[in-house]
């Protein structure tokens, strides 16, 4: 039997990046975890469990921490969420489980559910145990999954739990999608993402890397598999549409985050402008600070009330030293052969609510690097050209309970269906689709002529 080389062994994170991006929130130790676990009221039909897109039985896993049953705690979590480790780090818990905690109604701090989940999952990973799933005999069915992000990974794990072969195709060399490439290192280290995916690979999930799936490849996969899961996420980040946008010194937030996480970018120039005010924009701005930029400015055409970043992300950016320019819009990129400045125009709201530039308000911010974070385009053209599945504004339409698309052999989940939400939403989608595919293949098998 050939020696298995794990993803973690293949892709060593850069030591410098690891040092510059230490955990934003250090793990709980036993002395902190046990009292926190004991603080949980053990609600019935707990609101935290309902608020979790994957419906982790939160009180159950927390009480297992309290009782010292860490293995059982991790199993409880993994029963609902195969990417529990990355979710415990990347989830915006204040708007999910912790936001739903009844303690919020009691003038008390909500239970630190995310930190407790991470405590249980860290112990699980330290134990070296495999995923606690009993794999049934192979059914002989096979599914191709497009994209190696959280949605496909969760779907593949679910398929293996139903005895269905799963092969994941991805254009990049590493699995994990945004989990590996796109989440701030201080929230979810690249190594943590890979460590978690190594366990999914152990379930017998196959990976085909460096494989771009276009319409032709998709047709080939459809012909050779019983079903296809679409989990390729979103496309490239939008561009401003200004002259000089191809100039060195203009990049986008996803490339920037990927660049430093993979060790390709180790420093930042002195002045950085980040255009946009979403969560990814904040990750990019904070990264620029940690990579050595002295002036990092976020540029947003509306005010802080309208920014799409979570409040806690905004607060974090302010603490990192990021500055904000509100109600401004880029009108020109200044520079000879590399970026030297970004010209901005101040905006005001017109009577109908649309934003219009204030005449004569233009000014140029001297910057060395412009990072665009103004939303991602969709990546579904290769599907719609052939009429493979129905989409709406570029998003694949699915039945939310099963993940099934307009084409019964195609299922989908994650950002390519919801326009871009959280890792945990992709995991929930993938899990439901996995169950949906298994049910669909089973019923087809039953109805097939003998």
């Amino acid at each position, binding site marked *: 039997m050939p020696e298995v080389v794990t993803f973690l062994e293949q892709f060593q994170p850069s030591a410098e990046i690891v040092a510059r991006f230490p955990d934003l929130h250090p793990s709980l130790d036993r002395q902190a975890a046990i009292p926190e676990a004991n603080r949980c009221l053990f609600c019935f039909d*707990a609101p935290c469990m309902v608020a979790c897109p994957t419906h982790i039985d939160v009180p159950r896993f927390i009480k297992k921490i309290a009782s010292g049953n860490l293995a059982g705690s991790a199993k409880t979590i993994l029963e609902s969420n195969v990417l529990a480790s990355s979710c415990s780090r990347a989830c915006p818990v204040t708007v999910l489980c912790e936001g*739903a905690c009844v303690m919020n109604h009691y003038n008390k701090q909500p239970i630190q559910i995310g930190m407790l989940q991470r405590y249980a999952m860290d112990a699980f990973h330290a134990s070296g145990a495999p995923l606690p799933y009993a794999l049934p005999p192979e059914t002989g069915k096979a599914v191709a999954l497009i994209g190696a992000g959280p949605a496909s990974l969760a779907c593949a794990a679910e398929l293996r739990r139903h005895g269905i072969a799963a092969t994941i195709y991805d254009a990049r060399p590493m699995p994990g999608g945004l989990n590996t490439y796109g989440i701030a290192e201080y929230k979810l280290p690249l190594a943590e993402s890979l460590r978690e995916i190594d366990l999914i690979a152990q379930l017998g999930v196959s990976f085909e890397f460096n494989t771009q799936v276009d319409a032709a490849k998709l047709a080939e996969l459809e012909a050779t598999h019983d079903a296809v899961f679409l989990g390729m996420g979103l496309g490239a980040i939008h561009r401003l549409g200004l002259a000089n946008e191809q100039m060195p010194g203009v990049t986008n937030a996803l490339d920037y985050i990927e660049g430093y996480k993979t060790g390709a970018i180790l420093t930042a120039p002195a002045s950085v402008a980040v255009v946009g005010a979403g969560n990814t924009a904040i990750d990019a701005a904070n990264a620029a600070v940690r990579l050595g930029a002295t002036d990092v400015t976020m540029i947003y055409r509306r005010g802080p009330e309208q920014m799409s970043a979570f409040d806690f992300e905004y607060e974090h950016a302010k603490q990192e030293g990021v500055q904000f320019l509100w109600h401004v819009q880029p009108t020109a990129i200044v520079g000879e052969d590399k970026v030297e400045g970004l010209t901005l125009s101040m905006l005001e709201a017109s009577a109908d609510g649309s934003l219009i530039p204030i005449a004569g308000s233009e000014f140029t911010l001297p910057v060395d690097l412009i990072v665009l974070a103004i939303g991602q385009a969709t990546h579904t053209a290769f599907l719609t050209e052939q009429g493979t599945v129905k989409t709406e504004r570029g998003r694949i339409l699915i039945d939310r309970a099963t993940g099934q698309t307009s084409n019964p052999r195609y299922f989908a989940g994650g950002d390519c269906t919801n326009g871009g939400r959280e890792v945990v939403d992709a995991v929930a989608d993938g899990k439901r689709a996995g169950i949906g595919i298994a049910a669909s293949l089973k019923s087809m098998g039953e109805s097939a002529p003998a």
Partner: protein
Amino acid sequence: MPTLENTFAGIKCLNPFWLASAPPTNCGEQIMRAFDAGWGGAVWKTIGDPVTNVSSRYSSIDWAGQRMMGFNNIELISDRPIETNLREIAEAKRRYPKHAVIASLMVESKREVWHDMVKRAEEAGADGLELNFGCPHGMSERGMGSAVGQVPEYCEQISYWVKEVARTPVIVKLTPNITDIRMSARAAKRAGADALSAINTINSITGIDLDTFTPNPNVDGKSSHGGYCGPAVKPIALNMVQQIQSDALSVLPLSGIGGIGSWRDAAEFILLGCGNVQVCTAAMHYGYRIVEDMADGLLEWMASKGFETIEDFRGLSLPNVKEWKQLNINSRIVANIHADKCIGCQLCYTACWDGAHQCIHVDRTEGGLDQPVLGTDPRYAQHEANPHGKPTPAQVIGLSNKSVTMTPIPKLDLGGVGSGSGGTPLSRIPRVDVDECVGCNLCSLVCPVPDCITMDKVETGLPPQSWEERVASRAATAQ
């Protein structure tokens, strides 16, 4: 201003807080520091032929993150020479003449040995004597401690010997490791004891190390049963105190012991008739300084209730403890969930379904509040679980698991399930089916929010009647 000064069995005290005979009263140096901290008296660590102790000696029960909910020891009586203890008693009394120093004694069960010990302790200046008939470990194997306390005849015999020569008040300390504590209390009273103290520690094995399979405390790989004390034993102690104080053949001035750590605990023991209280575990946990709030808190409470002295409220709760057969079975209370305080944990719901009478439902948004109340007294009308066919807990969970939830995007998905601000959603607030409620208290006990679930009186229109009276009236009717 109320005062804590009191007299216990003829011993004048600055306050009713004594340190029990235990490690905190091992030597004069400790006891004098305790007096400085505010303790009114101390019962010296039991004096007798010096012993050799083992290590380790203590173990404890932690509960829900709280340390030392229950405490256990296998330490024996004093390991110091009798002369040393007596010399230090004399010194403590000389330097703290207003404080009570009680000599706890335990010697061989021989009349002349006890006579000698009593005389020496009194000559040293002890204000009183406490006879340790309660120690449940080690000493009992040598025919002392609870080996005496568990046999009323021995207890009576030795108490009698002591009373033959004692000039100071004699307090007999009782063991709880007996079927009916009144038997040994009566024996002590028959022998002429001046007072009792109760309870000593309870036989216990606090727990077993799941790696070594050896119980705690571990003495070179083995353990032995110890004596249990601390907050966990207070209810047992209160019950035994009540038994003694309600029994005419037992009742004597009683020094209450068992899980006392605050002024509230002390007030409860005194309300059941204790003349003072003794403390050990709480002082071992937090130090002598705890007596400051015990005194301060008790004085504040006494002032708020209009009590001037300990005697003003001593025993006030005794008339409120009845036998079950004397309780009014026609009195009815039902649970009332105050929606404005409810945080939606639904612990009352699961407790009522699994542990009580299935009369709490989560149906406020499904017309549950419109359910007619039939006005029957459920204790007699209902014997069927869930007569209205309400969803079971498993069905409720099943519905939740089927729900599709997504992470709310700020400014887009306001009011998502994760948004904890605002009040508790009505759908999370349980409702009591008043008609079905048996008034058991369970929901109000599990509810984490004070005053969120109250048990409210409901008029039954029936005159008060006890079970005893009902049986008597039935018998009369039958005749």
